């Protein structure tokens, strides 16, 4: 699974340009001889289990945050806008990479006070000397993601875009373990697009598939670091989080109580998540059609939306177990 996580995290897939991540996941599905289809917006759907019965949509988003080029000046410097929640104050000095492999570093204009810092004071340097030279490599509208290495210390890994490639990895691993079984429920495993720009992929695919329940597998913030910026009781290493609410969804009690029951019966450690700020695909799924009772299985993650997000592999393993046990259960 580690190899899969590494591959997924190192892959390029900002919102709206998820093709490479989708291809990687399709490779895995083909190894498992799973059938799949891709919808208009690019969501990847695998259908499994007993379709006559209750159907559950399990969603993990493939996209990551990124930058998009908006302007190239005569000296070859690029200007950019954000794709999703990019923290402008951590960008200076950071390297980014484009789909074609072009690498750049983010520079900052002179500012008097830190609060003046905004995207219009930042630029991207791809080593080009002129506009023409820059245009040979990159054009307006091209997107870039953080360039960051993958590291592991003990049971904890640090990488870019663990939000939400770790969620994709958990779902793929669960699919592997469930593949030989005859599931009591129908399950749609959906790898969604454009979550980071407003939960966009999950909504139309939920409309199309008409599931009875929704479950988003995504990362969640933790509150166990020194003076954390976000208040939450979730800690790294204490098991997957059963989402109670975030700013996009109040999870359906039927789903949360089922998750707690299944975790308890199978001795899987878990924590309860109440997240003040932040949304997940469950927010879009539960409002599709006539309303779909939905929940969230969250993998605790530190430093979300930075080049070094951190998760604990025990949490990952327990998240897979919880998802597998949940889907073996008759909803």
């Amino acid at each position: 699974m580690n190899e899969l996580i590494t591959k997924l995290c190192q892959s390029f897939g900002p919102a709206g340009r998820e093709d490479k991540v989708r291809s990687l996941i399709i490779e895995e599905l083909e190894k498992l001889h799973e059938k799949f289809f891709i919808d208009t917006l690019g969501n990847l759907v695998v259908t499994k289990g007993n379709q006559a019965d209750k159907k559950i949509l399990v969603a993990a988003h493939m996209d990551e945050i990124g930058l998009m080029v908006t302007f190239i000046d005569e000296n070859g410097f690029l200007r950019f806008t954000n794709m999703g929640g990019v923290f402008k104050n951590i960008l200076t000095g950071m390297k980014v990479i484009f789909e074609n492999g072009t690498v750049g570093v983010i520079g900052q204009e002179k500012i008097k006070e830190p609060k003046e810092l905004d995207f219009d004071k930042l630029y991207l340097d791809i080593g080009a000397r002129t506009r023409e030279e820059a245009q040979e490599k990159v054009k307006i509208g091209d997107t870039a993601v953080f360039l960051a290495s993958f590291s592991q210390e003990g049971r904890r890994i640090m990488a870019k875009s663990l939000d939400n490639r770790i969620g994709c990895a958990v779902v793929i691993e669960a699919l592997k373990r469930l593949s030989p079984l005859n599931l009591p429920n129908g399950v749609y495993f959906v790898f969604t697009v454009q979550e980071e720009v407003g939960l966009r992929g999950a909504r139309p695919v939920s409309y199309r598939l008409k599931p009875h329940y929704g479950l988003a597998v995504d990362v969640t913030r933790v509150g166990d670091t020194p003076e954390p910026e976000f208040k939450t009781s979730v800690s790294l290493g204490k098991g997957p989080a059963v989402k109670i609410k975030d700013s996009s969804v109040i999870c359906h009690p039927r789903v949360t109580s089922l998750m707690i029951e299944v975790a308890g019966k199978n001795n899987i450690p878990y924590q309860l998540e109440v997240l003040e700020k932040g949304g997940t695909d469950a927010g879009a799924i539960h409002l599709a059609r006539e309303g779909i009772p939905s929940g969230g299985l969250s993998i605790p993650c530190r430093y979300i939306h930075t080049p070094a997000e951190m998760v604990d592999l025990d949490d990952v393993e327990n998240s897979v177990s919880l998802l597998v046990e949940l889907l073996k259960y008759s909803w």
Partner: protein
Amino acid sequence: MLITELSQIPGVSGDETRVRNFIREKLNLWGIRNHTDSLGNLYACKDGRSSRKEKGLMLSAHMDEVGLMVSSIEKSGHLRFYKVGGINEKALIAKPVRIGPNDILGVIGAKAVHLQKKEEREKALEVDKLYIDIGAKSREDAEKAVKVGDYISFYSEASSFENIVKGKALDNRAGCAALLEILQRDYPFSFTAVFTVQEEVGLRGAGVAAYRVNPRIALVMETTSAADIPEAREQDYSTSLGSGPAFTVKDDSVITHPRILERLIEVAETQKRPYQFRRYGGSFTDAGAISLSGSGAAAGVISTPCRYIHAPVSLLFLEDWQNLVEITDAFIRSVHEKGLEV
């Protein structure tokens, strides 16, 4: 000229009736089947010469403009107002407006400059400090002409001179005019055109319209801000007048489907017509609501660049608008001839 005629018509979000009537008259005149839904979206069914349909192609343009609404009437007979949609407040003072169904004339007033305190002079007055003067002597007097809830639209003469068009509400009457121009032409396939309502207050008409049409591919015809003005830095222009229509790569509501963007570029290059990319990544368009409606649609946006939008008078270059029409024409023909895998 369609743009200037459309520009003159009052049609603030939720009050698009007169714009819709104007467009409907044209459609009826040209024998184009049309109908209106409960929100006021106007659907035109363009039937091609052959029976072959380009199933799932939808073009759209929003009919509404930003404006104001009467919120209360003072004892003195002056009107207080709310904003409808995003208005440039700095541009409001001393502008003429038309109020309500009877087009009562008024002027947006504020304390005269020599009566203002220093700090009042130094910053733009907020909407709650402004009022509209219709020349009434008392509340009772005013109530004979207007009532709370009446819509208020900017009043400015639309005109064109050589390459320049100026007027209110070019966002998005320029888009409506372009869509009408397309509808007048002959195509060997059928498609649906929708003139939507309430875009400026949150893309409200378009989502409903897309649910009804259920398109596979949608192209939104819009008008977008150009900031190619003194004191702005080139990277902050967003778009420039005279550089052709702007293609949106992303805004706050949509990431244009890559296949649509590629095809727009391809047809513009083939036709040797100028185009530019919208450089500002923010703001919202109907494409956002359309792309997420039903099971989802591939959506894109093509816009005429325009200076001073969301203000009482805006200005665009006719050549950009003409290029927008021709690129859109080539785009839909190309989608029909070569297909478009999404």
